[in-house]
C-alpha cells in the first residue's frame, strides 16, 4: 500500500523535521523546553484551584493526577487538530517544489505533539508517586490506548488537512467545535459520576472517542482497572477505516492541493 511505502521512505524526513521543529519552538524562549512541562502543570493548578476549592463538588480522588491525565490527552488531540487545518498551506514552499506525501506532514506533526505528550505522561508518573496511587498491571494498557488515540487523531487530522486547503474559515469552525468537544469530554470532571442522565453519560463516555480514551486512561492509571476491550476494538476499527478512507482522499487530491495553494 502506498501509505506504508511512503511512510518507510520519508520516515527519516518526518523524524528530522519533527526534531527540528521542537528545537525551533524552544530556541528563542527563555525557559526553553520547560514550557512544555510548565504549561500543562500551570493549567492543572488553575483547574485544581477552581474545581478543588471554588466548585469542590467536582473534585475526584487524586484530583491533580486526574486533571493532568485529561489535560495531557486533550493537549495532544487539540494541538494536532488545530495544526492540521493549515498543514498544507504552511508547508506550501516545500510541497510546491518537491514531492512530499501529505500524509508525512500529518505524521511529523503527530511526532512533535506526541513527544510533548510523552513528557507530560512522565509527570503523570511523578503525580502517581506523589498521590501514592496503587499501581496494577493494567497500567500497561496505557500503550494500546495511546495507539487508539493516535489512530483517531490521524484520521481527524487527515479530514481537516483536506478541508483546510479549500475551506477558508475552517480554522474558526474548528476552534469553536473543539471548545464544544472540550466541555463534553470530561477533562475537568468525571463523566461517570457527574453526568446523571444515563443516555447522556453513555453518549459522552462511549460515543465520543476522545472522551472514551480519557476515561479509560484514568481507569487504568488511577483506578487500577482494565480497558473495556470491546469498545476499544470498535473504536480502533472505526479509526483505521477512517484512516484508510482519509489517505485515499488525500492521495487522490494531491494535485489539486498544489494548484489550490
Amino acid at each position: 500500500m502506498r501509505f506504508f511505502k511512503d511512510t518507510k521512505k520519508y520516515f527519516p524526513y518526518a523524524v528530522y523535521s519533527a526534531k527540528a521543529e521542537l528545537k525551533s519552538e524552544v530556541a528563542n524562549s527563555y525557559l526553553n523546553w520547560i514550557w512544555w512541562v510548565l504549561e500543562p502543570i500551570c493549567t492543572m493548578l488553575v483547574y485544581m484551584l477552581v474545581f478543588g476549592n471554588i466548585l469542590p463538588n467536582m473534585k475526584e480522588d487524586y484530583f491533580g493526577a486526574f486533571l493532568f491525565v485529561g489535560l495531557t490527552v486533550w493537549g495532544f488531540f487539540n494541538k494536532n487538530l488545530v495544526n492540521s487545518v493549515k498543514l498544507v498551506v504552511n508547508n506550501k514552499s516545500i510541497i510546491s517544489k518537491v514531492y512530499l506525501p501529505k500524509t508525512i506532514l500529518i505524521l511529523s506533526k503527530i511526532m512533535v505533539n506526541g513527544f510533548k505528550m510523552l513528557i507530560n505522561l512522565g509527570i503523570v508518573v511523578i503525580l502517581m508517586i506523589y498521590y501514592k496511587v496503587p499501581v496494577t498491571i493494567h497500567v500497561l494498557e496505557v500503550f494500546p490506548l495511546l495507539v487508539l488515540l493516535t489512530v483517531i487523531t490521524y484520521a481527524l487530522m487527515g479530514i481537516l488537512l483536506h478541508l483546510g486547503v479549500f475551506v477558508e474559515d475552517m480554522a474558526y469552525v474548528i476552534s469553536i467545535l473543539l471548545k464544544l468537544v472540550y466541555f463534553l469530554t470530561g477533562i475537568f470532571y468525571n463523566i461517570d459520576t457527574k453526568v446523571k442522565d444515563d443516555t447522556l453519560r453513555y453518549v459522552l463516555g462511549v460515543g465520543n472517542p476522545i472522551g472514551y480514551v480519557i476515561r479509560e486512561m484514568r481507569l487504568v492509571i488511577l483506578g487500577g482497572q482494565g480497558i473495556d476491550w470491546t469498545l476499544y476494538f470498535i473504536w480502533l476499527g472505526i479509526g483505521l477505516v477512517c484512516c484508510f478512507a482519509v489517505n485515499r482522499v488525500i492521495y487522490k487530491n494531491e494535485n489539486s492541493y498544489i494548484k489550490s495553494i
Partner: protein
Amino acid sequence: MAEDIKATPGTEATVTAGEEANKQVPIAISVKDLVISYRMMRKMSVQRSILSFTQKDKAANRFVAVKGVSFDVPQGEIVGLIGKNGSGKSTTLRAIAGILSPDSGSIDLHGNTISLLSIGVGFKPLLTGRENIILSGMLLGFSEKEIAEKTEAIIEFSELGEFIDYPVKTYSSGMYSKLAFSITAILETNIILIDEVLSVGDEKFKKKSYRKMKELINTPDRTVVIVSHSIKTLEELCTTVIWLHDGEIKMVGETKEVLKEYQEFMK
C-alpha cells in the same frame, strides 16, 4: 542528438529517440501518454463549501492540463520546454519532478535522481539554514550522511557565513534564494529540471549562479529539462526543444527550427 528525436503528429504526440540513438545513449526520462488533471477548486467559505457539496456536476470543475504527452529524453540531452502560459509546460516539469502525479500514463526516470531547480527547494521558515539544508537534501533523496558531507560546500557557495545558523525567516529574499540555489546546485542529481529562474541573488551571485548553472548543465551525461519563455536562454542552452500547446505537443525538434516556428505562431 536532436536529429534522433522525432515527433509523431496527432493528438497524442510522441517524441522518441531514434533506434540508433537508443542503442548508443541510454534513456534518462521516459514520459508515456501523460495525462494530468486537477479540480479547479478555489478557496471558499464553509457556507459555500456545504452548498457546493450538494452539486452533482463536479466533473465540470476538472481541468486537464496535460493531454497524453509522450517523449523520451536520452541521457545527456538538454531539452527546452516552451509554450504560451497555460500550455502545460510547468505542469509537465512538476510531474517529471514527482510533485504532481499523473491521472494516467507514466514517467520513468530509470533510477536517476532528480531535482527541480526553480527558486530552490522550499524551506521551513522557523528552522535554521543548516537544518533546512538537511531537510531539503532528504527530500531530494540524499541520506543524512551524504548531505553532511556536502553541507560545508553548500554553505560556502551560498556565501551566508554565520547566518546559516539563523532561522530562515530572518533571511532577505536574496539570502533565501542563494541558499536554495546552492542546495540544488551542490547536491548534484543526474537529472536537473529548471523552471524559469536561471540566476538569483545580487549581481555578483547572479553571475556566479549562472556560471554554476551552465557548468551543471554542461556536465557530460547530465540530463536537463528547462522550462522558459526566454528564446535567448533556450537557444543558448538547449539541444532540443519541445513546444507544448494546450497540453499537447505541437512540435519537437532542433532548437532553432522549433523556436522559429514558435515565434511565428506567437506573432
